[in-house]
């Protein structure tokens, strides 16, 4: 290891940059720099995470006692609808888009995304449809109450008779979010196909970029189906058509197909970049190459293809013919194969490594544990007889929150901590990070584990009151929920204070391999002084290969064993 070059880079990165992100005003302006846009996405998304979380707190507050005493039935319906919608469309999607926006050009050695202005436009739609969605709290009748699925005929009810109502605003927001995501997807796909640095062949691209590519492909080909369904529903609601209205000859099950054709793959839009994050984080903190890199990336592609073929498993209980159920049950279970390949690769990567338990690694390990648990309950749900039994019980709610909070949110935290020094040029506070992890991990399990026994006992989902026999587990779940609320405080404190006061971060604080670690923290406006020429794969930990041929920092790569 050459300390001289490390120090040289560190010294260099201590200098201020033109228009460096220290100038906070940039983040409130129409910038076309993918790094600024990335952070804009992430911060906006986090604000909505807090709002969605606040709604969750109210729900858990309601559910701490069996009676419906805190909010009434209709308010509760609006709460879970808005909570689910905000968490998916306003938090995870924008958050992961932000992360990908920030990282992909750096990781593939590009100066920016392929279409910088389109990129900015896609981002600025987020506050627009976010505002539309929030406005529904203030219109007569309040927000939509039909759940985030918006199944007709429930979503076709319009008791106030107003043209502007919660459901219409909801549909407009979802359709706009679709437009924004498709704009983003076009940009990502073009960028990854066309702008990789010289020498970066497909199998030299970091796994994270592969997962982003796969996820964005799903957006590209899945979202239009949701958009079509949303437009037809909107017309039913406002223009008097009857596409989905069974009372007027329409077909509500067709809506379910439109919806799930997108929304099942959408879970992979969320989880794939998390898989990518795991694949980046584990090698760094275990000091080992990613085990079976090729299998890991190929499995992402297989998951993408399979995910488009399994949507009907959400409709096992909607009168689907049984041959179809068997077919989709089989394809659903098939997805566990490529997923299992990934899990195996991560475990093999971590196994026997010199583990460094920094906060990113803790979150990644915690996320993996939750994902394994969710995988087991997921396979159970994929089995038709079992699914029919627990359909619409809390078992399902427990399962998907393990995926979506346990694996996804923890994976997002892992990514934020891991790349925080790169993004801000400052180190976060490790102690606060570990506290944040402990609270999150305990909170997730306290909150969401009890939902499984509740579901098996028969507690239905989407209820504001319940039989007192369910009270015991619900109290625990609520306490866990409040703990999760509290857990965000050390995170916010950490981010804000270290961004302002934290120690300066060197270019490569983790001794990681990857193009993004070869340039100063935070990266200058056009990322690379000179576009790097890539000469090896992304995970050469412990080998003597260098990653690029034309960068003095290339030496860095050859250290460690």
């Amino acid at each position: 290891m050459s300390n001289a070059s490390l120090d040289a880079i560190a010294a260099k990165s201590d200098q201020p940059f033109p228009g460096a992100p220290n100038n906070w005003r940039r983040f409130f302006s129409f910038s076309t720099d993918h790094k600024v846009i990335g952070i804009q996405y992430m911060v906006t998304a986090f604000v909505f995470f807090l709002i969605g979380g606040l709604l969750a707190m109210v729900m858990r507050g309601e559910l701490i006692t069996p009676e419906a005493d805190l909010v009434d039935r209709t308010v509760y319906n609006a709460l879970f609808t808005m909570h689910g919608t905000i968490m998916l469309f306003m938090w995870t999607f924008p958050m992961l888009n932000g992360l990908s926006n920030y990282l992909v050009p750096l990781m593939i050695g590009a100066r920016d995304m392929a279409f910088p202005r389109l990129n900015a436009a896609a981002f600025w739609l987020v506050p627009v449809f976010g505002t539309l969605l929030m406005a529904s709290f203030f219109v007569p009748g309040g927000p939509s109450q039909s759940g985030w699925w918006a199944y007709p005929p429930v979503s076709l009810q319009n008791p106030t008779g107003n043209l502007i109502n919660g459901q219409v605003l909801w549909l407009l927001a979802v359709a706009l979010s679709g437009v924004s995501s498709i704009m983003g997807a076009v940009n990502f796909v073009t960028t990854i196909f066309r702008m990789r640095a010289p020498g970066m062949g497909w199998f030299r691209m970091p796994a994270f970029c592969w997962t982003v590519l796969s996820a964005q492909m799903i957006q590209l080909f899945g979202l239009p189906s949701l958009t079509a369904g949303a437009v037809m529903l909107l017309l039913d609601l406002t223009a008097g058509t009857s596409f989905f209205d069974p009372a007027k000859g329409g077909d509500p099950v067709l809506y379910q197909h439109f919806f799930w054709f997108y929304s099942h793959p959408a879970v992979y839009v969320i989880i794939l970049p998390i898989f990518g994050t795991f694949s980046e984080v584990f090698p760094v903190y275990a000091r080992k190459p990613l085990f079976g890199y090729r299998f890991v990336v190929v499995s992402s592609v297989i998951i993408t293809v399979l995910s488009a073929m399994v949507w009907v498993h959400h409709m096992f209980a909607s009168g689907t013919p049984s041959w179809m159920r068997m077919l989709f049950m089989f394809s659903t279970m098939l997805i566990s194969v490529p997923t299992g390949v990934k899990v195996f690769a991560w475990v093999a990567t971590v196994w026997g490594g010199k583990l460094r338990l920094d906060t990113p690694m803790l979150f990644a390990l915690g996320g993996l544990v939750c994902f394994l648990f969710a995988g087991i309950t997921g396979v159970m749900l994929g089995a038709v007889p079992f699914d029919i039994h627990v359909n619409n019980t809390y078992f399902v709610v427990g399962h998907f929150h393990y995926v979506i909070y346990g694996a996804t949110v923890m994976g997002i935290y892992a990514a934020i901590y891991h790349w925080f020094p790169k993004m801000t040029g400052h180190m976060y506070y490790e102690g606060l990070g570990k506290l944040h992890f402990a609270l999150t991990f305990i909170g997730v399990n306290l909150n969401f584990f009890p939902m499984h026994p509740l579901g098996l006992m028969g507690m239905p989902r989407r209820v504001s009151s319940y039989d007192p026999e369910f009270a015991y587990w619900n109290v625990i779940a609520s306490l866990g929920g409040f703990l999760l609320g509290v857990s965000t405080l050390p995170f916010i404190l950490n981010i804000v204070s270290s961004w302002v006061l934290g120690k300066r971060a060197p270019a490569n604080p983790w001794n990681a391999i990857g193009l993004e670690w070869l340039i100063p923290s935070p990266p200058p406006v056009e990322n690379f002084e000179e576009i790097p020429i890539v000469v090896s794969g992304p995970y050469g930990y412990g080998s003597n290969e260098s990653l690029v041929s034309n960068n003095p920092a290339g030496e860095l790569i050859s250290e460690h064993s």
Partner: protein
Amino acid sequence: MSTANLDPTLNAHSVHAAEHEEEDHRMFGFIVFLLSESVIFLSFFVGYTVYKTNITDWLPSGVEGLEVREPLINTIVLVSSSFVIYFAERFLHKENLWGFRAFWLLTMAMGSFFLYGQAVEWMGLPFGFTDGVFGGTFYLLTGFHGLHVMTGVLLQGIMLGRSFLPNNYAGGEFGVAATSLFWHFVDVIWIILFILIYVWQ
């Protein structure tokens, strides 16, 4: 403050390079966009087929079926315009600006004729948007497609206007290529739509 990133020549150079790159990526991006767009149409087509095969009293009462003659003329005009626009592009590549403008304008005229024909057809129809699922899907599909034709004609107008600006269209240009690709796309969609709605009655 003296990192190389401050070097003005370097920045100017790379900004220039980036602009060129963007030019190259546009067509790729546009094709990706069209692929995505076609899934919306596909969804509508699938919806139409599901309805048509499942609903027993499909046509609104009093409606016998759709008149095919006028839409057929429309179809012929639209399909031929795809050839006309192809020749317009060829003229541009040969740097024959007036040939380009003439054929381009002809394409616009044919597109407008299509829109006019559709408007006339719509006004003569005995059923409306809210007349059952049939009425809804009929106007949704033809309307959504019509919107695309309108967009196409609009884009063509912009490109025609730009061809009168100095120094434009020296050797073919992204805007023209994309507009023409879009036009072929709209054309193919119409053929499927025509078969689905008018031929398969």
